[in-house]
């Protein structure tokens, strides 16, 4: 447990320091959402209708943007070799890294959502619905995205490749995330899409670390 806590603590600390990149995701999220009303025009009703989708799209892109750093920094400075050799199972180490990444880069997206909801003319219920679905859904993005990050670890400038690799895995999350938010706003059934969203996160939580550890073991050179 000490080992995993140390790994998480280190990753969060690095992310929050200068050049760590925890804020890059939030700033990108902010940029996308701030630009959207200018592109769509001053139609408040339209913005309200598109709001949840815009927020989800922004959050999805923002979390893909920072994912390539998950293993690459450790690979480049040789830390990954020592993590692979260590006595902590690699699957658990991968899970700890992904969790730390979500805490540093995913959770701030959820926290920023209420503020950004104001820009899209969303009322309190709609904003909290989107924030709740993001809270339940962004772990799925991080944990499935880590598979792509592990596959692309030896390739430099792999950010775009990673986005393409994990696209099929992130589409269901986007569909059910937006569906659950819309359901909460229309007053239709919120439970079904939200449960599926939570299920996607749980599946990612189980499969992601195992798949990432397997691809890290085979990809070392």
């Amino acid at each position: 447990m000490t080992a995993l806590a140390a790994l998480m603590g280190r990753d969060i600390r690095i992310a929050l320091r200068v050049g760590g990149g925890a804020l890059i995701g939030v700033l990108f999220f902010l940029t996308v959402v701030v630009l959207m009303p200018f592109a769509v025009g001053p139609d408040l009703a339209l913005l309200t209708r598109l709001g949840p989708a815009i927020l989800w799209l922004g959050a999805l892109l923002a979390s893909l943007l920072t994912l390539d750093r998950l293993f690459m920094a450790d690979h480049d400075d040789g830390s990954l070799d020592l993590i692979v050799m260590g006595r902590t199972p690699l699957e658990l180490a991968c899970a700890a890294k992904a969790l730390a990444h979500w805490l540093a880069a995913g959770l701030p997206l959820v926290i920023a959502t209420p503020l950004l909801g104001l820009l899209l003319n969303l009322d309190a219920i709609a904003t909290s619905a989107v924030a709740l679905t993001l809270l339940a859904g962004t772990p799925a993005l991080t944990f499935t995205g880590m598979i792509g990050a592990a596959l692309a670890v030896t390739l430099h400038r792999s950010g775009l490749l990673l986005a393409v690799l994990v696209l099929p895995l992130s589409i269901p999350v986007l569909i059910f995330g937006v569906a659950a938010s819309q359901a909460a706003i229309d007053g239709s059934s919120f439970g079904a899409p939200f449960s599926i969203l939570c299920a996607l996160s749980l599946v990612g939580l189980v499969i992601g670390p195992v798949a990432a550890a397997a691809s890290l073991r085979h990809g070392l050179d």
Partner: protein
Amino acid sequence: MRLSGRGVSCARGGRPVFSGLDFEANSGEALAVVGANGSGKTSLLRMIAGLLVLAEGSITIEGGGAELTLPEQAHYLGHRDALKPALSVIENLSFWRDFLGGERSDVSETLATVGLGHAALLPAAYLSAGQKRRLSIARLLTVNRPIWLLDEPGSALDAAGASMFAGMMNDHLARGGLIVAATHGPLGITARELRIGGRT
């Protein structure tokens, strides 16, 4: 404890690097891997560390922790220092102590031993190449592992650093440790030579 390799072959990118290498090292013994550039010294160390797949042959460990695999009992000091520039010297070392399961030894004391006591709170980004190497060496002292795999350990070290490290390697061997080091220069300790590739 005995580390032995039988018929070890290495291939990188589909090309054979070396083949049919036999070696053996017992507790308290150091093996100096020598050979020309590109002869596969680093590859051999990485194969022992479990970071590279053997093309043929086997590397085994007898004795030592029965429940532990070979990589779990080894330290690997590679070309890259495994340091985070954003973290301070002491944070870097404390992390590896906690992650690799080191004893609760005093980290700042170890830093003083490798001559970095004055820089403990400095971000690792500001260290020179030699100081970074000293910090990686501090990792070997903080966490107990019987096998040390060292890749060019003397690179970037000054004369005082090299003799300090030679003293540490001798202590490690005296405690029954085992060292495999890839090197071009003298190690500063008594070591059996393992030559890879025909010519140098």
